[in-house]
C-alpha cells in the first residue's frame, strides 16, 4: 500500500511541473487555461496527500474552479474583442501587422532564451540544495497552536489559526478580496447581456436543482469548519459557484438584484468582521480578543457573515464589472446588514 502511494506521490510531483511547462508552452490559450484547471485539480490532490484537506478544498473550489472560470471568461471576452477588431479592420480596409505569435518572438532570440533557462535551472538547483541542507524547524508553530487550542473556541486547528490566533491576517485578507471587487468594479462595467442568450431548458433545470443544494452545502461547510476541514472560504467558494451558475444561466433574478443590496452584500463580511474585532476591545481586551469562553460563537458569527460576502464577491469577480445600470445607492440604505440573508434566500 505504501509503495503504491509512494509511486503516486512521485507521479504527482513530476506531473505538476510538467503540466506547468506544457501550459505555458502551448500556443493555444484555451488549451493553456484548460491545462491550468487540471493543474489546479492535481494541486488539490497533492494537498490531500500532504494532509492539508482545508487547502485542498479551497484549491479545488477557488484555485482551480473559480480562477479557471475567471480565465475562461476573460479568454472569451478577449476573443470577442479581437473578433470585433478584425471586423473593424476589414471594414475600414486598414492594414496592420498581424500579431506575432509569442512562440516566434521567443525563438527569435534563442541565446537569451537558453540563458534564462539556464539561470532558472541554476536557481532551482541552488534553492533545492539549500532546502536540502537545512533541516525543517521542528514543527514550527504547531506545538504552540496545539497548546492553545483549548482557548481557541474551535476544534479545527486551521480554523483556530485563521480566525483566532491570526485572525488579523484574515481580516486583512477579506479586505484584499473586497479590494479586488472594488478594482474590478472601478475598471469596467458589465456589458449589457444580450436578450437572446436565454439558457437552454437543461441548464435552467440544472440551475434550479443545483443552486439550493449548493447553498446548503455552503452552510454545512461553514458549520463544519469549526471542527474539521471547511470554513468560511470553502463555504464562500461554493456559494460563489452557485452565483457563477446563476450568471451563466443568465437568470433574470441576478440582473434584478438592486445595486445597493449588492454593495451591502459585498461589504457585509468585512464590515462585521471589523466591527466584531473592534467590539472585542469594548470589554478591555485587545483587538480581536474574543471575550471569555465565547470565542466559538463569535467565530461562527464571523464565518457566516464572511462566507456570504466571499460568495458574493467571488461571483462579482466572475461577472467582471460593476452592474450595468447607473447605481442609485441611496435608495437601499435602510436595508441593514441583514440583507445578506435575502441574498441567500433569493436564489
Amino acid at each position, binding site marked *: 500500500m505504501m509503495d503504491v502511494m509512494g509511486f503516486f506521490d512521485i507521479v504527482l510531483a513530476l506531473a505538476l511541473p510538467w503540466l506547468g511547462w506544457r501550459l505555458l508552452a502551448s500556443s493555444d490559450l484555451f488549451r493553456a487555461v484548460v491545462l491550468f484547471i487540471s493543474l489546479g485539480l492535481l494541486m488539490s490532490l497533492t494537498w490531500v496527500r500532504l494532509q492539508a484537506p482545508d487547502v485542498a478544498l479551497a484549491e479545488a473550489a477557488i484555485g482551480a474552479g473559480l480562477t479557471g472560470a475567471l480565465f475562461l471568461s476573460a479568454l472569451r471576452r478577449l476573443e470577442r474583442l479581437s473578433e470585433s477588431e478584425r471586423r473593424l479592420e476589414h471594414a475600414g480596409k486598414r492594414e496592420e501587422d498581424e500579431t506575432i505569435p509569442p512562440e516566434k518572438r521567443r525563438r527569435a532570440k534563442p541565446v537569451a532564451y537558453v540563458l534564462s533557462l539556464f539561470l532558472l535551472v541554476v536557481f532551482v538547483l541552488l534553492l533545492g540544495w539549500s532546502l536540502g541542507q537545512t533541516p*525543517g524547524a521542528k514543527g514550527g508553530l504547531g506545538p504552540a497552536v496545539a497548546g492553545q487550542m483549548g482557548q481557541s473556541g474551535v476544534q479545527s486547528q486551521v480554523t483556530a489559526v485563521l480566525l483566532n490566533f491570526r485572525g488579523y491576517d484574515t481580516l486583512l485578507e477579506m*479586505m484584499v478580496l473586497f479590494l479586488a471587487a472594488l478594482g474590478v468594479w472601478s475598471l469596467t462595467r458589465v456589458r449589457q447581456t444580450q436578450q437572446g442568450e436565454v439558457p437552454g431548458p437543461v441548464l435552467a433545470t440544472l440551475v434550479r436543482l443545483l443552486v439550493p443544494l449548493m447553498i446548503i452545502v455552503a452552510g454545512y461547510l461553514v458549520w463544519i469548519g469549526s471542527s474539521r476541514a471547511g470554513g468560511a472560504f470553502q463555504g464562500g467558494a461554493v456559494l460563489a459557484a452557485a452565483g457563477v451558475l446563476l450568471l451563466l444561466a443568465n437568470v433574470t433574478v441576478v440582473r434584478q438584484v438592486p445595486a445597493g443590496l449588492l454593495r451591502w452584500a459585498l461589504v457585509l463580511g468585512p464590515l462585521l468582521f471589523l466591527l466584531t474585532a473592534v467590539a472585542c*476591545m469594548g470589554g478591555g481586551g*485587545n483587538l480581536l480578543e474574543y471575550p471569555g469562553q465565547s470565542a466559538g460563537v463569535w467565530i461562527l458569527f464571523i464565518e457566516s457573515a464572511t462566507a456570504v460576502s466571499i460568495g458574493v464577491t467571488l461571483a462579482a469577480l466572475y461577472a467582471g464589472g460593476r452592474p450595468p445600470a447607473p447605481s442609485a*445607492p441611496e435608495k437601499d440604505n435602510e436595508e441593514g446588514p441583514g440583507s445578506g440573508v435575502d441574498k441567500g434566500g433569493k436564489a
Partner: protein
Amino acid sequence: MPDTAFWAVCLVVVPLFFALICFVRSDQAAVLGLLAAGLNALAALAMTVFFVRSGPLRYAIGGWQAPLGINFSIDGLSVLLVAMTAVTGLSVSMYARGYFSLRIGSAGEINRHGHQRAFFWPVWLLLWGALNGLFLSADLFNVYVTLEIIGLSAVVLTALSGKPAARLAAMRYLLVSLLGSCSYLFGVALLYRSYGILDMAALARLISPAPLMWASLALLTTGLLLKTALFPLHFWLPPAHANALAPVSAILSGLVVKASFYLMLRLWGDIFAQVLPFAAYVLLGVLGCGAVLWGAVQALLQKRLKMLIAYSTVAQLGYLFIALPLIRLDPGSSAWEAVILLIMSHACAKSAMFMAAGSIFLKAGHDRIDDLAGIKEVLPISSFAFVLAGVSLMGFPPSGGFVGKWLLLGVSLAGGEWWWGVMLVIGSLLAAGYVYRVASRLLVFKVTFFSRRQSIPPVMEWSAVLLALLALLLGLLAGYPLGLLEAGSPFPLHACREVMP
C-alpha cells in the same frame, strides 16, 4: 482607556471601516473620505503624543503573544512613518476633494469621471489602512498581506485614470507587484521553514548564517527591490506614476514606494544586520548610485512634466539606497536619522510636486514642459509650490533633504568612504538641473497664457503649497521627529526586544 496601542489600532481600523462605508455610500464618498483622513491624522497625532510619554510598545492582537499571534510593534520608526503618512495623506485627501469636484463639475464629463471619484476614496482608504498596518506590524506574513493590499490598490488607482497609457502602466505595475510579492512570500516561507517563526523581533535573535537563510534573504530583497523600483528594476515606475490621476501620482510616489523601502530598512538595518557582510550593502549602494544618475539623466531628457517628476522619484529612491551602506558604516545613529529625514521630506516634497503638477495640467490642458512658460500668471500658488518642493528635492538648506544629505555626507567622510558623499552631492546637482528645467519656465512671466479651464479650487493649490512648505521646514524642525526616534530607541527594533516578554 485610550493609550498608544488604542490609537495604533484606530490607525488601521478607521481607514478600513471608512473604506467599506465609502463604497456603500458612494454619493457621500468624498465627505466620508475627508472625515476618515481627519480622524486618521488625529489618531496619528494622539499616538505620537502617547508614544512620547510611554515609549515603544508591543501590542498583541487577539491577546496572543508574539510567536503564535500577530503583534504590533510600535517604535520610533513606525511612529514617524505613520505620522508622515497621516500628514501627506491628509493633504492629498484635501487635494483630491478639490480635484474630483473639479473634474466632475466640468460640463460633459460627468459620466466619465463620476466613477473615478466614487472608487478613488474607498481604494485610497484601503491603501492608507494597509500602509499604517504595514508600518505597525511586527509579523512578516502579516506584512505580506498588507503589501498585497498596497500593491493591488496602487494598481487599481493607477488604472482609474482610464487612459490607454495608464491601463498599460497599471498592467505592468500589477505584474511587477505580483512578481514582487510572490518572491517576498517565498522568502517568508523559507524563513518560516528554517526558524518556525514569523515575528520580526524574535527572528532577529534567531538569525544565523545558513544556505536557506541566504536564499530567503535574496528572495525577500528581490521582491522588495522590485516594489521599491530600485534602479535596474525601476522600469515600471515612471509610466505608472506619470499616467495616473494627480492625487494618485502623489500617493504612489510619496507613500507607496516608501512602504517597501521601510521593509528593506527593517530587514537590512535590523533583522539581518548581524549576518550580512558589508559588501552586500555596498552592492545596494552602487545600485542606488545608478538610480541617482540614471533617474536624473532621464528626468533631464523628459518632455512631459509628470514623467520628469516620476523619474525624479527613481533618482530619489537611489538616495535612500545609498544610505544603506552608510547606516552600516555609521557607529552612531545619524545615518538612520538621515534616511528617515530623507524619506519624510521626499514624501512631502514629491506629493506636493505631483499635486502642483496636477493643478498645472488641469489648468493648461497639457504638461509639456516647454509650453508651460507663463503659467505662473494664472497659477501663482501652484507654481510656487512646485518650486518649493523642487528646492527640497535638490537638498537645499533648510529643507529636510539638506539635513539628511548633510548627515550622510558627514558619515561617509568620517567613515573614510567619501565617494558616497560625492555621489550625494552630484545627485543633488543633477536634481537642481531638472528642477531648474521646470522652474525656469514656471518663474518666467508672460503677459498671456492660454488656459483651458477657468479656475482651480484654492484647496488644491494650498494643500500643495503647505505640504511643500512642510518639506522645506522639515530641516529646521528636524530635531523634533528625530528626537522621537531617540526617545523610542536609537535603532528601531532593539528597544522592542527588551520590552518583549
